[in-house]
């Protein structure tokens, strides 16, 4: 190997390393989070929990604002699930008997909307679904993960 080739290889490795390290640095948030940042993260999350709580408890105004119709029977999720009990978010995914398939919490939320509540199912990635999911998980925080349990 000539000296010229060695120099080119050396420069290429240095460039590659630089690019890699630089990119890594940009993606990994190596800077410490400030208390203000953490507060914002928390607020963003809890606002979704709050919205989900309202939807879960049948708040008509919130439904209207979000363009969803979760119930036509007067029933709300919380009527069978006070404190989001027996929603078992920590058991999903699992085989869900009611829908006869391996499903997620979001599948079951839609089942409850359509069957007991006779409402209109919501998109699995919609804001309303994410908010409902946020509330259910938050209310069940500290529960032990047990996916697949019936």
């Amino acid at each position, binding site marked *: 190997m000539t000296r010229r080739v060695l120099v080119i290889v050396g420069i290429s490795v240095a460039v590659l390393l630089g690019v890699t390290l630089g990119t890594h640095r940009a993606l990994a948030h190596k800077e410490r989070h400030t208390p203000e940042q953490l507060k914002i993260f928390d607020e963003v999350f*809890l606002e979704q*929990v*709050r919205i989900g*709580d*309202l939807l879960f*408890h049948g*708040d008509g105004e919130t439904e209207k604002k979000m363009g969803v119709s979760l119930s036509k*029977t*007067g*029933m709300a999720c*919380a*009527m*069978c*699930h*006070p*404190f*989001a*009990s*027996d929603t*078992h978010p*920590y*058991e999903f995914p699992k085989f869900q008997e*009611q829908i006869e398939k391996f499903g997620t919490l979001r599948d079951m939320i839609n089942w*409850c909307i359509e*069957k*007991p509540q006779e409402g209109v199912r919501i998109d699995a990635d919609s804001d309303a679904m994410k908010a409902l999911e946020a*509330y259910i998980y*938050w*209310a*069940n*925080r*500290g*529960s*032990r993960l*047990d996916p697949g*349990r*019936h």
Partner: protein
Amino acid sequence: MDSLERERRELDTILRRPGERPDSSVRIDRRTFLHKSIVCGTAVGAASFGWFPLLNTLDVAYGAETFKFAWISDNHLYPKDVNTRFVEKAVRAVEEVQAMTPPADFLIHGGDIAQLGDPVEIALGSDILKEAKIRKVFIPGEHDWYLDMGATWRKHFGDPNWTFDHKGVRFIGLDTVSRAPDYWSATKMSPKERMGAMATLDGSIGGPWAGVGSDQLKWLNHTLSSWPKDRPVIVFSHNPLYEYYPPWNFWVRDWREVQEILRPYTNVTNVHGHTHQVLYNEIGKMRSIGMLATSWPWPYAPEGVPDLTKCMVRADPGDYFDGMGWARLTVTAAERVQNEYMMFGRKPQNVFGEALADSGCADNVNQELHPRIADRGWYSKD
């Protein structure tokens, strides 16, 4: 130790003194024995359980003739055009009571005939109950009360508390719902808002609304004072008369005073609604049975159920009759009060969850719950 735990310990200390339980004349028969065996997990109980499905049978001692009465409650009716399912289920319960042979001596309605206290809802319930041609007595639930503070309910059903003697038993109906601390005036709630807060079981705005109240306690004391201490007393109340789960008002806040009054009486049975589930407990000398709803079943309390409760089966949410029903209670000359849960569409042996996976109690395994967040800011509202 948080306040709830302190409260629990206090209840145990005061009311579960060593050796204290219902009067010894309250016989433990085979069914009750088997029940206790199952609670303890012994082989004999497990092996024999299938033969004795009605494990919440009570046995209280007294001499009188056999008679039956029926309980219906927690219909939570909306107007017909909003929800026909709740109407169907209330109608079914009333039809089944009416079809009892021999007929029940009376029907007790245990409250929450309406969902939002709407006069249309209460009138609908009143009409449905008219189909039961037997004698009827009524106590209110919180859902019946807080739109107009009981005005419509009273118009249809009369006084919210009462007493009568029937074939050797003193029956007492208590009003455990109308004495909520005033949570509405300071925040200028409309009647609908007041009712809405009360209608949310897991809400925090209504606070510890369930209670008997000092005036009614005096009345209870006076009512019982003329009754021999060893004679049977059956007390109907919407809420349980002990502390089961205060955050959902599965209690009365003045349970200490209630128990103090009941303590001298050795054959007291409390039959209550509100919890929408199979429930049984013994506190001091009082036995307590929770009734099914016709509307929907509540889950068991997150912190567990009384040890003596044989848990109900997990209801199928795809079947809107499942897990719900009414109750048939028999007071026998052979010194028994038997309770049969008449769960819609289920044979008696399928009311209780035998297998762990089918039990309403086992359903809560791994679960930790936290109160709501969205109603905490209400008091800051103008």
